[in-house]
Structures are given as C-alpha cells and as structure tokens.
C-alpha cells in the first residue's frame, strides 16, 4: 500500500491551487453565482488540458487516470469554482469509449473534440431519465451545450443519448448552491451512444467515475470549510480566550477533519480501483460518494456554526461552502436511496 501522490500529481495540485487563488476568488464566485458558471475559468481549464487530461491518448486526450483528474476536482472544490468539472470529465471519458462515427458533423468524434477543447460544455447527467417526455432537472443544464443522459426504461428500452441543448429547450432553475441547474427538454435531436444493456453498462461506468470525481470535489469543499472554521476559531476571542481553546469548538472540528481525512483515502482507493480492481469499483465508488457527501455536509455545517452569527452572514465565505456541499450531495437524489442501492452491491 502507498498513499503518496506522484511528483507530477503534487505539481498539478499546486499549479491549480495557485491559479484558482487568483481566478476563483470568493468575490468571483459570488459574481458568477446568478449564472452558476464561470466561462472565463472554463476556457482557462480547457487551455491547460484539464478537461482532456483523463481522456485516452487514442481519443485525443492526455491519457491521465481518473485519480489524477479527481485530484484536480479536489482543488476546484476547495475554491468552490463555478464549473461543472466532474460532469464534463465523466462525459468526455464516456465519449472517448464510443467507437468513432464515420460521418463528420455532429457525430461523436466532433462532440468529443468540442468537449475536450472547451469549445462546448458537454456534461453527464448522472441520474437516469425514465420518462424523457417530461423535462429533466439537470444540475449543469443551464451552462451545457450538450448533455449525455440515459433515457427510457427496461420495459420500453433504454438509450444513452447526447442531446445538444438550445436555449428554448432549457428552463433555468434557482438552486441552494448557485448551480447552473435547469429543466431540460430531451425530446429533440440526439446522438445515440448506446442502446439497452450496452447503454446501461456505459452509463453506469460513467456515473461511477462521476461519483469518484464528485467525492473528491466534496473533500475539497469540506477540507477548505474546516480550514476556514479553524482560522476563525484561532482569531475570535470570547470569555477572554480564543474560542478554539474551548473543546466545544475544537472537538467537533477535529471530528470533521478526521471524517474528511477518511473520505479522502476512500475516494483515492475508489479511483485506484477503476484501473486496478474493476470488480470492486462500483461498490467503492458508491461508498466514496455517499461518505464524502455526508462528511462535507457535516464539516461545513460545523465550521459555519463555529462562526456563531457571522456564519450566516452573506459576506462570510463559509456559507458558500455550506451551500455548495448540500447542493452537490443532492445531485444524485435522496442519499437514503443511495445507501440502499449500496447494500445491493455489498460483497
């Protein structure tokens, strides 16, 4: 066993941290919150090949692994960056698996190229859409140029589709965490990426990768939230002492840091399993997402509470983390259903 990242991975994280400290400042995050998307940052990530990083070389990517992409997701989480990175990386990796379309135009290779170059935002919608005649609530719907979704049921047949989104197909929804959420009409023109069993298998693999990437992002959100809470506890005096010296403040933060540390090693193991232990991947990916989501929710709530009344003031940054953690957690639906689903995967 080895828990250490490679030198390249450490360098990537440090580069990204430096970049985001300048480009995804809390002021910028607030500025783009109404749209839920930061196009300038997206262009920058694309120009650094971060979207194509974990796409196979044969499909025009940098051939990186899921684990390295997830490390990038951690940093984006730490800076609550307004970009659908996890949704886009999962989508690009899925597209790269689909055999090339012989005809040019709006076929798969073109969409893959648009996605990885950043010319278009192509995202994965991680929840199945049993009835596509009804609009689907898609967390990245308002900023995506195309979305990949699994539509239909086993009874009527399932289809994995890429649907280009035009403005008239998208109705913006307001969300607790300022996501680019929208109700999207998926009945229009589409590119088929698979049918029935093949569609389900490709979709499930992509969603499991999304789970790992999102778990990583959640550990970034949670870990930074704890740092903000601890920094406040080291500066705020009450009863003649720094509040961080009171166990009532310190111990919940220590619990949160411990859980977050556990969430980190768990998503790392899941990401590793994607390449090295495929039989355990689905189970570990499910665990990683469920655990990181709960850990981030608790950590940011604890850190917010340590601020007392200041924690709920819009101008304090901790609320950005508190809201983001909750919203991201719900992207896969009711967490309880997630735990019950995991029970079916236990060995």
């Amino acid at each position, binding site marked *: 066993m080895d828990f250490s990242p490679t030198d390249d991975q450490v360098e990537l994280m440090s580069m990204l941290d430096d970049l985001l400290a300048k480009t995804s400042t809390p002021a910028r995050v607030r500025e783009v919150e109404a749209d839920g998307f930061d196009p300038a940052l997206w262009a920058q990530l694309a120009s650094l090949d971060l979207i194509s990083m974990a796409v196979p070389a044969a499909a025009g990517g940098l051939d990186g692994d899921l684990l390295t992409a997830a490390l990038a997701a951690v940093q984006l989480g730490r800076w609550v960056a307004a970009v659908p990175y996890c949704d886009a990386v999962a989508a690009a990796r899925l597209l790269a698996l689909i055999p090339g379309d012989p005809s040019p135009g709006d076929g798969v290779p073109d969409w893959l190229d648009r996605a990885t170059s950043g010319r278009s935002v192509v995202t994965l919608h991680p929840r199945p859409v049993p009835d596509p005649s009804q609009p689907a609530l898609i967390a990245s719907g308002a900023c995506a140029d195309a979305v990949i979704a699994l539509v239909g049921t086993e009874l009527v047949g399932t289809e994995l589709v890429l649907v280009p989104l035009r403005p008239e197909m998208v109705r913006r929804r307001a969300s607790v965490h300022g996501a680019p959420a929208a109700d999207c009409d998926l009945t229009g023109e589409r590119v088929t990426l698979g049918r029935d069993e093949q569609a389900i298998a490709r979709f499930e693999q992509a969603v499991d990768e999304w789970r790992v990437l999102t778990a990583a992002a959640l550990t970034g959100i949670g870990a930074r939230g704890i740092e903000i809470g601890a920094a406040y506890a*080291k500066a705020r005096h009450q009863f003649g002492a720094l509040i*961080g010296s009171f*166990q009532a403040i310190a111990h919940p933060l220590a619990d949160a840091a411990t859980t977050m540390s556990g969430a980190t090693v768990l998503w790392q193991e899941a990401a590793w399993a994607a390449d090295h232990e495929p039989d355990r991947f689905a189970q570990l990916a499910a665990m990683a997402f469920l655990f990181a989501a709960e850990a981030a929710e608790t950590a940011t709530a604890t850190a917010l509470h340590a601020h007392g009344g200041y924690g709920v003031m819009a101008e304090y940054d901790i609320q950005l983390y508190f809201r983001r953690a909750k919203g991201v957690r719900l992207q896969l639906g009711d967490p309880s259903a997630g735990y019950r689903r995991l*029970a079916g995967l236990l060995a």
Partner: protein
Amino acid sequence: MLMDFAESPANQEFRARVREFFAQHVTDEVKADVRRTGTTHSASLAAALARTGWLAASWPEEYGGRNADPLQLMILAEEATLAEAPWGSITMTAKVSRVITQLGSDFQRREIVPRALAGEVLICLGYTEPESGSDIAAARTSARREGDDWIISGQKVFTSLANVSTHVFLLTRTDTTAEKHRGLTLFLVPLDAPGVKILPIYTFDGHRTNITHYDDVRVSDEMRVGDVNRAWKVLALALALEREAACPHGEFGRLYATTLRWARASHGDDGRPAWEDPAVKERLARMAIDVEVARLLDYRTAWKAKRGEPPIIEGSMAKLFSTERYVTAAQRAMDMHGAAGACVDSGEPAAIEAEHAFGHSVVTTIYGGTSEIQRSIIAEQFLGLPNTRSKS
C-alpha cells in the same frame, strides 16, 4: 511513488501464513477460557507465537526479530483480531520490550528482553491512577532512592492483565518539585515483589481488570527504564509504538461481517426477511463504508510509520474514527435484532457478536487515549488550534 491500494504478493503470502497460524492456535478451548476468566491471555498462544518469532516481528534481527515492517504488523494484528486471538498481553509485552531495546539498560536488554521473546516474561502497563487518567503526567505513585534501590508506594488502576503478568511497566513520581512532566521515572517492577497487591475490578462486559497497590516495594535501580525524571521521553516512544501497530478496525470489521451474514439469512422482529427491510439495508451500507474507511485509516497509519515518520495525527484519527463508529455500529446491530437484541443468552452468533461489541466498543473509545484526548491532539496538532486541555 504512486498511490497503490493493493497488498504486495509478499504480504499476501505473509497474511496467509499468519491466518493459518491463528486458525491452528486459537482453538474453541482457548476462546472458552477467555470467556470464563475475563482475561484476554493465553499461555499456549504466547508460547506458540514465541516459537514463530512473531512476538518480536517488527524488531531488528539482532534482538531475535524478523524486521517486519509496520504494514506486516498491521496484517498480523488484523488476522489476530479476526481469529479472536487473546493476545493483548503479548502485544503489550512486545511493545514495552521494544522500548527497552531502544531506551533501556544493557542489563535489561540481557536479562529481560530474551525472556520476553520466549514468552516467559509478560509485561502490563501501570500508568493510570485513581486520580490521574487522561492527565497521565499527574501520576502520584512515588519512588524514592535508597542506596542502589528505589522504594515505591502508591496505587494504579485499570492495570489490565496484571493478574497474569510477571512485571508492570510502572510510571512513578521521583521529583515532586519539578514541573509535572519533568519529575517522572519508569520502572519495570516484578509483580511478585513483596508489597505488591493485585485486586480484581470487574467490568460490565465481563472482563477483569485490576487495581494494583504498591506498599514500600523495593526495586533495584537496574529495573529503571530510561533516565531519572525523564519518563516523558520513554512514554512518548511507548505511545508511538502503540499507535503504529494498533488495529482498531479489526473488531469492527468482524461485527460488520457477522451482521451482514445474519441480515441476509434471517428474519427481523416482524417475521419478514431482514434483508427486505430498507432500514436494515441502509444501516448495513453505512457500516460497510465505516469499516472500509477505518481499515484505510489504519493502513495509512502503518504506511506513514513505514516511511519512518511518526504517525501521530494519523494514529489519532484512525483510533477516533474506528472506535466511535464501532460504538454506533454496535448499537445499530443490536437494534436490528429487535427485542431479542437486549437478551444476552442468545445462541445466534450475530447477536452474540453485537452484544459483545455493545460493551467492548465503549471500552475501545476509552483505553489507549480517550476519544476526547484524540480530538484534542487533532485539534491542536493538525488544525493548529490553541491548547484545549490545560486550564492552569
């Protein structure tokens, strides 16, 4: 370096040998003996372990060890726990002996260590006193110099395994005027010395621990471990070794595996298959995640130690997480059995395991540093918060 969560082929092979060993030596008779006496010690297991050399697995070869790395020690501990091996006395002896090889005297290295390795010397810990638990440096048991000897007086509590041990690793105060961390000295006191009295304390979960009294016990200076008034340095090493090889996830994993087997094959309180109950499923899924996280945190601690870095934070996090989640899981496991979960005379293995965990898990959040102590360590040393303990 590269993240890698696989077990190396050599360690897989080591695990297989260890598993076979415990399967052979932890017999039903050994387990029944532990239940009857409430003391987690088996002389036959200790002797067998001594023969394999695993008693000192992590030691350098010059002391009869096998140079096993911390990851292998973790495997050893994991397999011992899965097999329900009563080896608390053995690991404790190994840790104190390891401290002696590093900070003890030539006399102790010559006279004590080989006998500990042979399973003849068993050492228990004498840190805690009635008035000093978590505040370990507040110990008041006194030792005063008299020629080549020391005269020791005082009492210790929770001196677990003293009733089967030959020696106690005793923390004493040798300077009452110095700052409290700087007036302490450690001794290896033979438990058959005149003036030592061992009285049992019974716990609600069926274990026996002890209170030990020391009434003018005369101990030769040769049995002093480390310098006079410098016990803190020795203790730091002893506590670090304790963290390195601790395996709090082992028992938790056993509870989970037993409960999962039960849930898939049994009926709940309402007569329906337990596995059809969504609440059972959610609780088992949560338990499965917590066990996996606990396992990873333990291995991360061992990995850090293998790199030669003291795994202080990692060890505290692993212990805190494993034991606290074990407590919750034990409660939920009992809940799943419904009203029968409160009965302690069930023949159902999963109910027995849950009932065992109900009592034992609480103990694990206390011994070896309470959850509150671990949280303070993490708050102060990882989050950089101010001192959360000393109110002086």
